[in-house]
Every structure is written in C-alpha cells, then in structure tokens.
C-alpha cells in the first residue's frame, strides 16, 4: 500500500480513460505490482457499470410520445402565438361562422359601394362635381369599421408566417405587437375577428394602397413582413400557415377528447386538413385529410357541414 496514496489519482484517471500515454504506462506499471490498486480499479469499473444501469422509474411510452408536443405547446404559449387562434376556435360555432359571413358581406359591400361611386363619378361628373371628392371620405370611416376586426385578427396567421421567416430580422420580430396588445386590439373591435380569413387582409391591403385610411399598427407590421418576404414564397408560406393551423387544431382535438366543443374542433380540423391537401397535394396530406374527415364524419354524419366535408372527401377518396 505504500506509495498508493500518491498514485490513487493516477489510477482513477486511468479508469476514467483520461490519462496521457506516459501516465497510462506509469499507472499500468504500478497496477501490475499492486493488488490493492488493481482491486480498486475493479471497484471503480463495477461502480461505473452499476451506476450506468442504475434503474429509475421510467415514464410510460406515452410520456415520450407526448413530450415533443408539450414542449412545442409551451413554446407557443410563451410566445403568445396561438392565443388568438384558440380564442376563435373555442368561440361558439354559430358566432364564428356568423362573424365570417358578416365580415365578408361588409368587405363586399364596401367594395361594391366604392365601385359604384367610381362609376357614378364618371357618369355624373358635371352634376356631382362639388360632391364627388367627398365620396372616398364618406367611405373611409365605413371601411375603418370593417377593417378593424379584419385587420387585427389575422395577426395570428400572418405572424405564424412572419415569425419563422428567415428574411425577417430581429427588429422586425421585435416590432410585432405582443399578445396582450393584439388581444386588446381584438377586444376593441366589434366583431370576433380572429376567424377572418387571411385572404380578406389581402383585399384590405389593396384598399390601403389605393389611399384609404385603413392603416393600423398591425397592417404596418404585415406590410413590413411582406416586404421582407419574396413574393414567390407567398403561396408556400400560406400553405405552411394552413398546415400549422391544422397542427394547432389537431392538438386541440386531442386535448378536448370527446368533451364539449370537440365536434366543432373536429369539423375545423377536417376542413383545415382538406384545404391543406388542396394547397399541396402530397400523399401524406391526403392521408391526413382522409383521416381527419372520416374522424369527423364518424361522429357527425348528417347536416350541411357533414355534407360539405363528405363532398370534399369524395374528391380525394372516391367511393
């Protein structure tokens, strides 16, 4: 045992595979003549082996299956990304569809009204000359009313595109309104905006380009994101947004189980999946769309919505 105390560190280093070539030679030379240190090395080896296989209660397999999704949900909830979307999702179906219809109606009405005014201005210019310039000014407040609910809500969708976009820099990301601010903006508006389609935003942005007063903080952000994003990427980006919406819906369906609101969530998921496949006809998306549509139809086989889903399902899966 004499001299072993000094060599202990070296022997342990050897068992940790951390020795240099010279140290290895020295340690091995010592081990050859010292049974006590050999035994110590044996102990260290067995301790390491037992420690590595030291069991602990393993969570069930379902824990590992769900963990990635839990992590992504936490990332989403901390960034506030899907909050608007989920609020819209959990709203009663009739209100949502009603709001969507009302929004589209308003947009159409405003558009038609503007067109008519233009026509009238052209045809009655001599008589209406003093009044004509006022026409856009009169329309603007109406457009503003319609715009508020439409412009604010799609933030959730557009931000979903903007956030991961490689062409957005940190400043642009920083400029995106925080979740609370978006909620305030949505709450200020009269219609339950989050369900407004992203396409409606495009229409309003066109109006804005024409000089109407539809500008808002959100629109500026959208513009900033769109300027930074190549135009050619837009359809792909939109498909990606739809896909992400579908994933969010899928998570909601999973979390609701068979509880209240689950039928509605399944309908949304089925429609989203079908749309996703329409945008990008891959085999994987087709399979998902069929599964989601059939899952909805298995629970609700009658009614207008079921018929709509069935009709779309038949297009990708003929009987």
């Amino acid at each position, binding site marked *: 045992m004499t001299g072993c105390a000094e060599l202990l560190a070296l022997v342990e280093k050897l068992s*940790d595979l951390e020795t240099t070539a010279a140290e290895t030679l020295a340690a091995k030379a010592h081990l050859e003549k010292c049974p006590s240190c050999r*035994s110590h090395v044996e102990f260290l080896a067995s301790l390491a082996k037992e420690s*590595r*296989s030291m069991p602990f209660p393993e*969570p069930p397999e379902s824990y590992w299956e769900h*963990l990635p999704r839990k992590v992504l949900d936490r990332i989403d909830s901390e960034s506030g990304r899907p909050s608007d979307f989920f609020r819209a999702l959990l709203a009663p179906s009739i209100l949502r569809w009603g709001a969507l219809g009302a929004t589209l109606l308003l947009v159409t009405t405003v558009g038609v009204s503007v067109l008519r005014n233009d026509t009238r201005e052209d045809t009655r210019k001599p008589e209406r000359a003093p009044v004509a310039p006022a026409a856009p000014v009169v329309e603007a407040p109406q457009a503003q009313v319609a715009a508020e609910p439409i412009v604010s809500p799609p933030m959730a969708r557009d931000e979903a595109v903007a956030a*991961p976009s490689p062409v957005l820099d940190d400043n642009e990301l920083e400029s995106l309104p925080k979740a609370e601010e978006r909620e305030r903006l949505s709450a200020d508006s009269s219609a339950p905006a989050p369900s407004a389609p992203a396409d409606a935003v495009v229409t309003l942005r066109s109006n804005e380009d024409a000089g109407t007063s539809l500008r808002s903080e959100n629109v500026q952000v959208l513009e900033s994101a769109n300027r930074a994003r190549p135009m050619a990427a837009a359809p792909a980006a939109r498909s990606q947004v739809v896909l992400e919406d579908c994933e969010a819906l899928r998570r909601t369906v999973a979390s609701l189980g068979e509880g209240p609101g689950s039928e509605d969530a399944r309908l949304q998921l089925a429609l989203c999946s079908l749309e996703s496949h329409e945008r990008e006809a891959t085999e994987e998306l087709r399979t998902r769309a069929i599964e989601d549509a059939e899952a909805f139809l298995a629970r609700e086989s009658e009614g207008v919505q079921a018929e709509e889903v069935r009709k779309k399902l038949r297009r990708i899966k003929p009987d």
Partner: protein
Amino acid sequence: MTGLASAKSMERSAEADKELVLRAREGDRDAFAEIVRSYQRRIYAVAMRMTRRHEVADDITQDTFVRAYRNLGRFEAGRPLRPWLTRIAVNLAINYLNGVAKREQPLYTEDAPFGPARGGSARALRPEPLDSNPERALESEELALDLDRAVSLLSLEQRTVFLLKVVEEMRYEEIAKLLGISEGTVMSRLSRARGRLRVMLAAHVGPVQKARGSR
C-alpha cells in the same frame, strides 16, 4: 434495454443534428420536435438522476428544450447537441437543487443500514455477469437500491460530478467547463465521491476493496 441505452440509440449524428438545427431555426416545428424526440430520454435521465423526482425531471426536461429553442440562434450548428442540452439540463437541476430541494425532505437518510443488515444477502460490487437466478436478481435489486441511496446521499457537488463523469461519461474538461470549476476540482470531487460511495457500499464490496476504501 435500460433507459440510457434506449436514449443513446435515439441519438443522431452531428451532421443530422446540424440539419435539424438549421431547419428548426427557420421555424420548422417538425425539425425541433425531432430534436426533442432524439434527446428527451437522455435529458430526462440526467434530470431524474440528479433530482430523483419525476415531476421535477419532467419540468427540467421541458424547460431544457424550451430554452434550447429560444437560444437556437446562438447555437453553432454542426456542434454536437447532446453536451449543450445536457449543460442546460444540469444547470436547471442545480438551480432546483440549490433552491427548492434544500427546503424539501430528502428522499433518503443515512440512518437506514445498507446491504445485508437490511435482511438480504448483498451482491458483491464486482464486474461479474448477472444471471437469471431469482436470488441473484434480488441481490442485484438490493445493490441497485443501495447504490441509488448512496448516490443520493452524496453532497450536491460530489453527486453532480459523479453523475456527469460516471453516468454521462463526460470528460473532465467538459465537466469543468460546464460547472465553472477547474479540472483539478473535478478530479478531487470525483475521488471524494467514490471514496464515500465505497464506504457506504461496504456491504457490497469485497474484502480487498474494503481495505482500499478505508483509506
């Protein structure tokens, strides 16, 4: 297959990790989910061995990946992910153990005896193959329990270094960098941890090894 073996089998090459990291940075959620899937068992095992509570290990595992996601932009793609993720998890576990855990009741105390005194016959802590004999299996279980308890009774500093070196098989240099200490301190903490374990596990240690452990 043990949890660790299964965790290792899930891990990917640095090249495959690089691609996933780059995709995740671009906002590809599937890519990040794949990273989580690849390392979740390993990170959970680290957290579980250090904190010994599922709910805490679960929190730490999730926090590790959430933090990793937030800092993906700063991570140098192409470098191995495992040490980076492990470092985050270990830091979170140390924070937990330094804070909440100190106010909690320890899972084990040194009052209860180790090994045969508890009524069983102790298996020697030697590198010998296990067999399917039920009595041997019981002994093996006994050793595992005692080892688990002995490791938990180490000081936080010793336990951390021991787990990182012996279980995670990290190099002295990596551990030193991770914990912000010198390599010499890593080695001395490790040596003291092993010395304490040998004393606590004396019931499982052969006569020659016992003599060595009484130093």
